[in-house]
């Protein structure tokens, strides 16, 4: 049977810092991006709050959070709902040229 899970993928410095390309969670119910960050923090020692959020808990300028390829800033931000089979992509965008 195919396992249904939420897939979280890390790129760039997140992958290097964590020595991991991502993780998966089998969810019983929908959760929000804010709740996902809490789960990731438990697994990665608070890393994602530090990287993805500002002190006022808004989304940091140095981080992209995509749900199935869509930036959560255009969805429901940290309240965006996610569930099994969704793919969340996390990376710091490269701005230079």
């Amino acid at each position, binding site marked *: 049977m195919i396992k249904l899970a939420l897939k979280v993928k890390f790129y760039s410095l997140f992958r290097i810092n964590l020595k991991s390309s991502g993780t998966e969670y089998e969810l019983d119910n929908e959760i929000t991006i804010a709740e996902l960050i809490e789960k990731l923090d438990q697994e990665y020692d608070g890393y994602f709050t530090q990287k993805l959020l500002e002190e006022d808990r808004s989304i940091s300028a140095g981080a992209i959070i995509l749900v199935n390829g*869509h930036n959560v800033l255009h969805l429901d931000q940290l309240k965006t709902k996610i569930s099994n089979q969704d793919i969340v992509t996390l990376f710091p965008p*490269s701005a230079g040229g």
Partner: protein
Amino acid sequence: MKDYLKRQEKLFSKAQRKRIEELNILIAGTGGLGTNQALQLQRIGVNKLYLYDYDRVEISNLNRQLCYGKKDLGRLKVEAAAEFLNDFDLETEIISRNEKITPAAEIPTEIDIIFDGMDNFESRFILDQLALENELPFIHAGIEGFFAQIMLVLPESKIRLKDVFAGSEKEETPAVFSPAVAVTASIQVLEALKYLLGFDNYLKNQLLHLDLLNSQMEKIDLN
């Protein structure tokens, strides 16, 4: 066919070779990415390159901006770049525009594609909007340290640059160096050509992520 293109002749069909030699390309920003793009596009023999920039050459540019040297410090970038490229005496016409890309910029009607050579997301969002308004394809790249991303945005694309990179406007100056910039610009040229020449496997609604520390290149689906 231009006589110096013999060694790439077998790579393309006759129609593709003709297409390459008819291409008119706008390079927005003649910094690290833009100078590398210009060198590659001139070597493959495109018809015209329009170079847009409004800056002058500074000492901090010289670690990666291949059209400039110390003798060019203080000169307008587009003039120095055009002079450098024209010194090769190849047949691509180089047109320099000392102009800032603004929402009111007039894009020449003969352009086939816009290349992103910018160094910040505010400017890139303007460029993406200009591409949309002028119904032109746009190839984005951003580079920082050993990481980069590349995205092809087509006139019909539902996902624009801002849909992916909203909120990315940062104030810090990113660290950049020549080998990573050169690789990124070369892949930008390759991906644009694949689309323009009708190859099937160009980047469709995907972001190409380069991790040059891990020697990895991965596609991120944007559907």
